[in-house]
């Protein structure tokens, strides 16, 4: 079926218009904005350009602390998700028919519930009068302060991010030939060796891809640090919110946001290329 060369462009035209107008243009505007000078008294100075916001972001201790906190929280969440999500996906994949799909859905369905609801749920569980502390009191232990500390943020983020780890690992496991494990066992490998040397290497791309997603999403998370971190525990996203809506220093907020975007893209694209290159050869 031959059609004119322009047909695909006509077909994707409407979407292209929307994306240009609401994605490309705003990003461009924001980039320009991040270079605009700002005066607390008069506001954004449209014609003047400066690098001071970026300098501020990269040199000021306050922001440095926030970037560092964001980084290690995201890293910790990623590690937890790998440690919990990958084995969970493996365990689920070995279950029998009805339970397998049901439990997989139970693990993944929370993805479709708003993050606000989930954050609120955690604040109820981890609060000073919350369920966890009530449980601790019941067994005679002292209540632990979790809400408005890094603990609450990490736990809630792990909860939200876990499905994003389970999905790619599960997908990798599905691609495994089920006979491979049995083949290894028949050749006298122990279950642990089989896991380590046969299953794990083939699941590694899924784990890596999941780690990228989890790290990126955690670093840019807003609602969870906002609701569970409190006013003192800022992460990148909540700081941007402050600059925009409280300080009204849009250029600075823009600079931070764009730094986050670039960092996200760089990590994802370069690591992706690295992983793809290594694994394309061995796995095809």
């Amino acid at each position, binding site marked *: 079926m031959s059609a004119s060369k322009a047909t695909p462009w006509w077909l994707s035209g409407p979407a292209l218009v929307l994306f240009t107008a609401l994605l490309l243009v705003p990003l461009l505007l924001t980039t320009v904005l991040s270079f605009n000078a700002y005066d607390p008294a008069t506001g954004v100075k449209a014609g003047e350009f400066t690098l001071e916001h970026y300098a501020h972001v990269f040199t000021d201790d306050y922001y440095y602390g926030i970037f560092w906190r964001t980084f290690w929280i995201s890293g910790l969440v990623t590690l937890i998700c790998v440690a919990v999500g990958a084995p969970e996906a493996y365990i689920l994949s070995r279950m029998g028919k009805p339970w397998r799909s049901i439990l997989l859905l139970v693990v993944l369905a929370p993805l479709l519930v708003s993050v606000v609801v989930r954050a609120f749920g955690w604040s109820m569980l981890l609060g000073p009068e919350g369920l966890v502390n009530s449980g601790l009191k019941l067994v005679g232990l002292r209540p632990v302060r979790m809400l408005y500390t890094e603990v609450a943020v990490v736990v809630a983020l792990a909860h939200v991010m876990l499905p994003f780890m389970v999905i790619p690992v599960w997908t990798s496991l599905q691609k495994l030939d089920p006979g491979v494990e049995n083949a290894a066992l028949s050749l006298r490998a122990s279950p642990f060796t089989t896991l380590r040397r046969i299953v794990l290497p083939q699941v590694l791309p899924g784990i890596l891809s999941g780690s990228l997603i989890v790290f*990126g999403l955690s670093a840019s998370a*807003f*609602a969870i640090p906002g609701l569970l971190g409190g006013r003192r525990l800022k992460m990148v996203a909540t700081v941007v919110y402050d600059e925009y809506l409280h300080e009204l220093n849009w250029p600075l907020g823009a600079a931070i946001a764009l730094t986050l975007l670039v960092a996200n893209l760089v990590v994802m694209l370069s690591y992706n290329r690295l992983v793809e290159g290594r694994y394309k050869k061995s796995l095809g």
Partner: protein
Amino acid sequence: MRKNGPLALLFNALVIAFMLAPLLVVCVVAFTPENTLTLPTTEFSLRWFEAVFAHPDFIQSFWNSLWLALASATLATLLAVPAGMAITRYTFPGRGFLNGLFLSPLIIPHLVLGVALLRLFALVGGTGSFGWLVLAHALIVTPYTLRLVVAALVGFDRSAEQAALSLGASQTQMFTRITLPMILPGVTGGWLLAFINSFDEVTMSIFVTSPSTVTLPVRMYMYATESIDPLMAAVSALMVAVTAFAMIILDRVYGLDRVLVGR
């Protein structure tokens, strides 16, 4: 595949409990008769649900969210179906770029999108406009619809279209009588997924909503940062109910497991 040992099953049970805990707590606490966040031990009360329905702000936000989700999901689907056809059926320079562009909202932090759109709205006078908000949400949910539409088109047996042509159908008749009905599960699934994601969205919305267009999740966020009482729990429980309802329909139409994992 060998069976899971008791240790594995215990681990699994803990993970399941972990995943369900906050949702269950929210739904249960919503029924408390007390004034504070406690578990209903003696009786189940609907007072907080009544309070929600008596709270005009929440009602307004609910309708905002609902109409917004309906409109943005529909717009996203109308854009994604032809775009999906273009990407899967034609080879042309720029195809990879378009595919990447249309999926990019998935890897661009919603925070950045919110900030960028705030800037745009300030420039074009879009703040406070429901229409611009629909466009913003459509942008965010289009990738979800596009992915499902593309999956439906890729797994499509083209010979059915050839059969229709050979039997005398015009290109339009072929599309409306054959192609569209055959990809309908993917299209509908995409619409539903878009609806759910728009309804749930908070991070970008918090930047671009205005007092008249506040969506439910944003309203909840603002409320929760100030006071924490069972009213929030009731609202949350209602949100879970709406999402669950949408999920059931999605499962019927497309298969929840297919949507989430892509089998």
